[in-house]
């Protein structure tokens, strides 16, 4: 028997320190539906779902399942009610097998031959929803997509009728996303209901039957998918019109700024992470590197920015060899870096905004004279960055952690662009930012391109790459599967290349040059 035919959240309100994360939100989903929950970061989607999953308790409002009010105080209550949640970050034990991970959450595993029981049920689900998974594999051996399937299986084992998925495709390749969507469709067909948290419009359009849009904690719209288009949804989400495409000024690429020759870089575990890569980046060009994370992007960026030693090959910036030079030298010579995981690498959270605004430049003139830092100058400089890059903060005399993610990233971008570097290396610069900040950061990168700088952009966001890159290299297991021009890159090929199923014949540098 199905536990959930209809679920309704009625008048949900939740505030944190007087700030409403959710205000009087209503939501309804019935069996067999896929409901998209759309909103920018910080709009309140995750809070709402955490309430449904029992991680938070609402200040006001009811949750009604099959016309009975239920009280969900803990995740256990919600599981009992038939609700399962697939978090963005998987909660799996890396060294255990798939079967063991699934057994962990179960109360009713038979005492004898628990393995057989779990195996049988896994194969049952696999068949039903066409999910391929080997129960004996250890979690760390699995790809992100497979790990996600384990999470889905865990929920199914607990007899979840309603599945909440928090940005499920953020870690997947396009192919894997496609497979996930097939699974979701089959589950919906089987009578499950699915709530999909996302801010990717394409996904919502592709798979959902209905959509609810949340902005600043309030439901701003809801519609059947057939009745809306992407533009309309985007407008609902941000509250204004958004440019989904930039008007990139066509530019002839200039001189070569960066040349990488047969670069080999090892990863943390001694593996070959970057395998004999050669490429060049030119002025007035954004060179993109597409790929699923973990295919050598990090090691490549670290080698170029002086944070990691390469084991062979050459890195040349405007005729000067920078191979295995320190981060400080690389920076002084004109390579600046917007790092991935901005909170971890890019800033010092407890230091003041103005102290963060000179990170990396603090050691040189004009900020540092003899031994001392010129704090008046530093503060002036920071005020300039804050003004020029639209950073909203009441004061620069605050620890930078008090800023929002978007404002922190604007400061980092400002800091790295201000010195007009020959090459700007940006890793996932808009990851996790809302549409407004994303648009702003991309514009800044394009502005750098127009000013004559070269940009190396590493991103997993294909839309981003297509919007701002002149050329896109697809990296897989440390090798380029091909370098595409913005015009000829179509999503089908790039997806295959990202998964290593297609490799374009390598173009020689000379042929490149002649184009």
């Amino acid at each position, binding site marked *: 028997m199905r536990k959930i035919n209809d679920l309704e959240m009625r008048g949900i309100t939740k505030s944190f320190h007087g700030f409403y994360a959710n205000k009087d939100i209503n939501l309804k989903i019935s069996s067999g539906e896929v409901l998209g929950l759309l909103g920018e970061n910080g709009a309140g989607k995750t809070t709402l779902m955490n309430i449904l999953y029992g991680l938070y308790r609402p200040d006001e409002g009811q949750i009604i399942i099959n016309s009975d009010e239920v009280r969900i105080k803990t995740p256990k209550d919600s599981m009992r009610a038939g609700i399962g949640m697939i978090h963005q970050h998987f909660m799996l034990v890396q060294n255990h097998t798939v079967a063991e991970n699934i057994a962990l959450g179960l109360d009713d595993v038979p005492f004898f031959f628990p393995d057989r029981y779990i195996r049988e049920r896994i194969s049952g689900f696999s068949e039903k929803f066409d999910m391929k998974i080997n129960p004996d594999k250890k979690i760390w051996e699995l790809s992100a997509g497979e790990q996600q399937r384990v999470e889905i299986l865990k929920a199914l084992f607990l007899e979840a009728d309603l599945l909440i998925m928090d940005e499920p495709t953020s870690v997947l390749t396009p192919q894997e996303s496609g497979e996930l969507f097939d699974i979701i469709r089959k589950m919906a067909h089987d009578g499950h209901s699915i709530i999909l948290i996302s801010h990717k419009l394409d996904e919502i359009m592709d798979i959902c039957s209905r959509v609810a849009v949340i902005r600043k904690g309030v439901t701003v719209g809801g519609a059947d998918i057939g009745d809306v288009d992407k533009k309309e949804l985007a407008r609902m989400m941000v509250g204004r019109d958004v440019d989904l495409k930039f008007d990139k000024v066509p530019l002839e690429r200039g001189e070569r700024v960066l040349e990488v020759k047969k670069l080999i870089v090892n990863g943390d575990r001694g593996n070959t992470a970057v395998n004999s890569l050669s490429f060049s980046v030119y002025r007035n060009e954004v060179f993109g590197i597409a790929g699923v994370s973990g295919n050598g992007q990090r090691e490549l960026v670290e080698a170029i920015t002086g944070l990691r030693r390469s084991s062979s090959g050459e890195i040349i910036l405007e005729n000067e060899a920078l191979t295995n030079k320190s981060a400080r030298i690389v*920076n002084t010579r004109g390579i600046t870096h917007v790092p991935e995981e901005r909170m971890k690498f890019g800033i010092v959270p*407890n230091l003041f905004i103005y102290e963060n605004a000179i990170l990396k430049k603090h050691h040189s003139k004009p900020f540092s004279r003899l031994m001392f830092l010129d704090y008046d100058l530093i503060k002036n400089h920071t005020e300039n960055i804050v003004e020029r890059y639209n950073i909203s903060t009441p004061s620069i005399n*605050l620890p930078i952690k008090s800023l929002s993610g978007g404002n922190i990233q604007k400061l980092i971008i400002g800091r790295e662009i201000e010195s007009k570097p020959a090459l700007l290396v940006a890793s996932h610069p808009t990851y996790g930012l809302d549409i407004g900040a994303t648009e702003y950061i991309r514009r800044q990168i394009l502005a750098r391109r127009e000013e004559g700088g070269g940009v190396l952009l590493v991103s997993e966001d294909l839309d981003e790459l297509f919007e701002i890159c002149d050329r896109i290299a697809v990296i897989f297991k440390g090798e380029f599967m091909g370098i595409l021009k913005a015009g000829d890159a179509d999503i089908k090929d790039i997806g295959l290349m990202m998964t290593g199923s297609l490799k374009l014949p390598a173009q020689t540098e000379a042929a490149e040059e002649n184009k």
Partner: protein
Amino acid sequence: MSKIMLKIDVSPREKEKPLISNLILAASLLAGLAAIGVVFLAKGVNPFFAIYKIFSGSFGSIYGFKETVTKSIPLILIAAGLTVAYRGKFWNIGAESQLLAGSAAATWIALTWGAALPGWTAIFLMFSGGFIAGALWGIIPAIMRVRFGINEVISTLMLNYIGAEFIKMLVIGPWKGKTQFGFPYTDDFPETAQLALLGNSRIHYVTLIIALLASVLVYALLFRTRFGYEVRVIGENQEAARYAGIDFYKTTIIIMIISGGLAGLAGVGEVAGLHHHLTYPDSISSGYGFTAIIVAWLSRLNPITAIISGLFFAGILVGGDAIQISLNLPAATVNIFNGVILVFLIMGEFFQKNRVAIKLQGAKWNR
């Protein structure tokens, strides 16, 4: 049916307001004193009276206050050094033996050249030698940490034992004084190598001036210079320091040169100002290297306010001696006192960083 429930809600503070911070600091001190009161009660002593005795012993009389100032000198000096190390998240627990290294070097200089040199030269050489010795002793764990990844808490702590035993070996062995009737002392320093005292106190003012100067300089170093900036970046976020191209190796070494060196200076002051010879480690330092950790922490790693917290803990040391005698309490009382205060200060950190609210829950949600 409505059931009212108490719920404890913990959430990180977005901003740390100075007023709240200071209130929490005061509250943790008070709570610490209250907990210590229990210890006094267990010994059958009225805690209010005991605490009154401690503070009247150290701050209530001119004699007591002079002693307090004397004992604050090494605390302030060492705490200034520890502040640099702790700002860079280098957990130097080894100031005790860095102090001893300083006093050993000063002793050697005093006994070898002291008599032959004019007063100020001898003193100058002793302080320089003490700084270098403390610094060298401090560099060892720094190198072990940056080259081999050895945890500095363990290495600095263990070096304390090695240092202390080494001093013992010196004073009962090769350095034992011919004029000391078999006591484990070195010979007394020649007069040129002794520090002048202030009036009829035991305040060796030269070291006091050095200590106050060091506090100001360390403050300027931390908050006005490139080096201080790099130390704070390393301390707050190592990954960002790497990203910013900060030389980890060099900075850590300099941190420990300063931290060990200042502890070494404190050691010079103790032997040249008070004892005038080297002797057993326990007599030279009554745990200054450890108490200074609390001093630095109570000052929230600010070398200027460390002057005040240094006086406060010197007062507890002096007052502790006073209650040992007047209330007949064991010598360990002072250590318990210091330990309890530190524990409460650290617990207070939690409340500095998090907002804890007790909520009455249920009225609305359960209806």
